[in-house]
């Protein structure tokens, strides 16, 4: 942030860095520059679903005189409802991004030195196929693993499975929503998936714990959040930082980081001890409630006040607000909730809090997701898997229901139970995504092959042996997206404009690889048009209409009790498990228990992280539009803390964590909007791959500082908020 003026105790700063620099560094696309003259040209509109992030909103690309002009929301789409978020709107900035990968590259220097030579697609694919065959011959195909994120990975997963590669992992589980899904799975018998079935639009009381809607642009939820604000719903925000959501709240609870569990337990204590919970729901659907009530008996608001810093009276008042609004009271389950290593239990606690409010399948609570049936493509059956997966041997994390990333990484390092010699990484920047990059690099050094399929030269691409440039979502076909929500729907992804260079769509790369690996029969279609037409035909969907409209809605079914839906629970007891026998059996707490967080060493502060509305992970920092709005992150420092540390608003500083790791320089945002003992950064910045020219060393990487992480014993999630940092002033 740039300082504008300091007069009269005022601070005026700019969320992007100053003026001239921005203008001079970014080339003006003069062919696009129309100024105050209204835009002109022949415009064609093509619907497709967005993948600037994982929310997958339906959009409509406007192509003017053959060039991508703008991307608008598709009014038929239940996710965007005709309005995209800034990243979706900024999709043309990814298409035109000069820092994109353009040609297939093969490593020319030492691994990790970012030296590559451009090759033809044939050379690159033959190279990859030859290495696959060599590894398969020496160790078996199971020794090649896939890392994945997003829709485009679909056919890589398919082709690699056909070849016998059983190992795979997605950071979206253990590094994101996994703890939540397991917490809910243990409690209700179902995870929540995406989008979370939160009826924010109709809620009368919304509780956000760390969820910073508005900065966290989960489009549909942000739209409904604004509705809730307009409806004057009671909003309660728990966050060490005065987030945008907190500014809309009736109650902002600036909780001490790491003590959220204490707060949730105290809330439940109030609801139970004051008899404010939904007794009918609990009596009908609850399992082990008495044992649960006994377990939380001592978690009084007074006890929690000492832990959380939130006054007991506030805890009581907010609990009563929830009770007053129930069942239209909703504790948002969150999404990126892998904070402290005991997250599945904390998420289970919020699930139980929701259960006490009796909001399952209720209007203004958690609705029951509805989907639609779409037939799969008639693929041939996969061969039997040769060996078991390596990521979670002996059920080390007994409740993980997806692959654990750090388990796969560890197996790569140790070579146990068997060696992992090849990685294919699809759209997943493992250097920034996984905790402790040292371990990731150690694993990479054990590999005979690292293939990175990406649109941008991410940090992981810098370590690749082969980089295969993917088209961006707006230039390619992908599989159908069959969405679950208030009503099921099917969305189509189709190319709207040709890629600017030699990029090829993910499905094509996978298909070409399949041919070279001798498993071409598993991709028995000419192209995606044929594939999609076949799926549609089998499902009774008018493909021509879908191509024209982009979205097809499924049948409307009841999703709340109010609408006539029946609720049931797929837990062992077939009830909501206030007491979890399966946890107890495995030696875990049957009712969530609170563990106090460690104290920061003197002069150190706890670093927490979050999202900005204009960026997705570490993927969009070079997008022309989004970079224009936020080209570097800032470290939020309480104004008094900053003054004590001798830091001025807007100055650059480096952060050093408890393990001595020093970040790139980052601007100080000295603000009242954060607790004095806490620092905050938006993650995804501080890129170190030189090929990302416009984002190189802009801001600091939060994940680089995440060297001390705890692993969730239930499901393998890795923490992101367990690091303490101090300031290193620049010379």
């Amino acid at each position, binding site marked *: 942030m740039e300082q504008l003026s300091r007069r009269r105790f005022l601070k005026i700063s700019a969320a992007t860095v100053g003026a001239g620099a921005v203008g001079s560094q970014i080339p003006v696309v003069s062919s696009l520059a129309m100024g*105050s003259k209204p835009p002109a040209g022949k415009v064609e509109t093509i619907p497709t679903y967005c993948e600037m992030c994982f929310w997958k909103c339906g959009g409509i690309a406007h192509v003017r005189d053959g060039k991508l002009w703008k991307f608008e929301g598709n009014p038929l789409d239940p996710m965007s409802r005709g*309005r995209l978020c800034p990243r979706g709107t900024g999709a043309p900035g990814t298409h035109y991004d000069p820092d994109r990968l353009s040609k297939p590259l093969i490593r020319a220097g030492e691994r990790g030195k970012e030296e590559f030579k451009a090759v033809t697609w044939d050379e690159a694919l033959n190279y990859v196929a030859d290495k696959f065959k060599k590894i398969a011959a020496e160790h078996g195909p199971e020794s090649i693993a896939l890392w994945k994120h997003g829709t485009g990975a679909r056919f890589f997963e398919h082709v690699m499975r056909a070849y016998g590669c059983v190992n795979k992992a997605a950071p979206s589980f253990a590094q994101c929503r996994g703890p939540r899904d397991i917490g809910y799975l243990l409690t209700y018998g179902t995870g929540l998936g995406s989008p979370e079935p939160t009826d924010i639009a109709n809620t009368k009381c919304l509780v956000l714990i760390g969820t910073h809607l508005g900065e966290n642009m989960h489009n549909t939820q942000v739209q409904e959040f*604004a509705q809730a604000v307009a409806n004057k719903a009671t909003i309660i925000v728990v966050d060490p930082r005065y987030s945008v959501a907190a500014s809309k709240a009736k109650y902002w609870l600036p909780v001490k980081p790491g003590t959220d569990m204490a707060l949730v337990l105290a809330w439940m204590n109030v609801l139970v001890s004051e008899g404010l919970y939904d007794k009918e729901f609990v009596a009908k659907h609850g399992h082990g409630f008495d044992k649960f009530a006994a377990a939380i008996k001592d978690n009084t608001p007074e006890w929690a006040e000492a832990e959380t810093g939130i006054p007991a009276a506030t805890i009581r008042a907010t609990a009563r607000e929830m009770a007053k609004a129930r069942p239209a009271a909703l504790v948002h389950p969150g999404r990126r909730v892998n904070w402290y290593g005991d997250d599945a239990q904390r998420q289970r606690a919020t699930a139980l809090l929701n259960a006490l409010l009796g909001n399952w399948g209720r209007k203004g609570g958690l609705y029951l997701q509805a989907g639609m049936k779409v037939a799969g493509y008639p693929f041939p059956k996969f061969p039997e898997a040769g060996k078991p997966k390596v990521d979670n041997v002996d059920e080390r994390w007994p409740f993980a229901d997806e692959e654990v990333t750090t388990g796969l990484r560890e197996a790569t390092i140790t070579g146990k139970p068997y060696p992992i010699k090849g990685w294919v990484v699809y759209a997943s920047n493992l250097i920034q995504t996984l905790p402790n990059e040292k371990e990731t690099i150690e694993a990479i050094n054990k590999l005979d092959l690292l293939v990175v399929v990406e649109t941008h030269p991410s940090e992981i691409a810098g370590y690749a042996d082969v980089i295969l440039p993917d088209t961006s979502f707006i230039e390619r076909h992908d599989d159908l997206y069959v969405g679950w929500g208030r009503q099921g729907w099917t969305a189509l992804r189709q190319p709207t404009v040709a890629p600017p260079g030699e990029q090829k769509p993910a499905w094509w790369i996978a298909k070409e690889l399949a041919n070279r690996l001798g498993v071409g029969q598993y991709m028995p279609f000419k192209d995606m048009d044929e594939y999609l037409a076949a799926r549609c035909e089998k499902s009774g969907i008018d493909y021509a209409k879908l191509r024209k409209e982009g979205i097809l809605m499924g049948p409307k079914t009841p999703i709340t009790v109010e609408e006539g839906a029946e609720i049931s629970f797929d837990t062992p007891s077939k009830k909501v498990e206030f007491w979890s026998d399966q946890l107890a059996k495995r030696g875990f707490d049957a009712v969530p228990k609170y563990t106090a967080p460690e104290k920061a060493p003197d002069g150190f502060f706890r670093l927490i992280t979050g999202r900005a509305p204009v960026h997705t992970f570490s993927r969009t920092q070079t997008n022309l539009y989004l970079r224009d709005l936020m080209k570097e992150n800032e470290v939020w420092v309480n104004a008094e803390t900053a003054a004590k540390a001798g830091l001025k608003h807007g100055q650059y500083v480096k952060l050093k964590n408890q393990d001595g790791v020093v970040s790139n320089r980052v601007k100080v945002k000295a603000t009242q909007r954060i607790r004095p003992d806490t620092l905050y950064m938006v993650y995804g910045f501080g890129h170190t791959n030189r090929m990302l020219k416009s984002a190189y060393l802009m801001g600091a990487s939060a994940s680089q500082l995440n060297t001390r992480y705890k692993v969730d014993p239930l499901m393998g999630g890795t923490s992101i908020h367990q690091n303490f940092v101090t300031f290193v002033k620049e010379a």
Partner: protein
Amino acid sequence: MPRFGMVIDTLKCVGCMDCVVACQTENDVPFGHCRDWIVTETRGEFPNLSLEIRSERCNHCDNPPCVTCCPTGASHVEGFGKTVQVTAEKCIGCKACLAACPYGARFVHPDGYADKCTFCLHRVKEGKDPACVSVCPTHCMVFGDLDDPKSAVSQLLKSRKHHTILPEAGTKPRVFYLT
């Protein structure tokens, strides 16, 4: 003849900057420039705080100093909607209007002329809302005729507390912020 204005609900606005990006793509605003932007204003001391977020742009003032100072008539009040517009072919690039605007709403287009928000008149003429209004995920912006008492903007101004930016400049701004 309508008199266009905009009403923005700061309670709903989350400052996501979607309006900024939508304007840039819709109007081919050159990279590094913007016709609208987000201002956040935090008051108070931890933990007693309040925050106002505003999507700001040209206020299409009733009394526009940029039009007054323009030596060529390039900056003018357009008949349609009484909006403030710039005719690029008349602008000499003297930048007086940039200095005269209390809101900093104008910039010099890399092609040399003064540029700013047009209220997306080209869209409005087609019966659409301006790009920023129609993209907003929070539906916090409403565009319409301030002279029509039945319009949504007039109704909102009648029923809700609101303010403008720097009314003391005497410019009579036509972008209103609901609080």
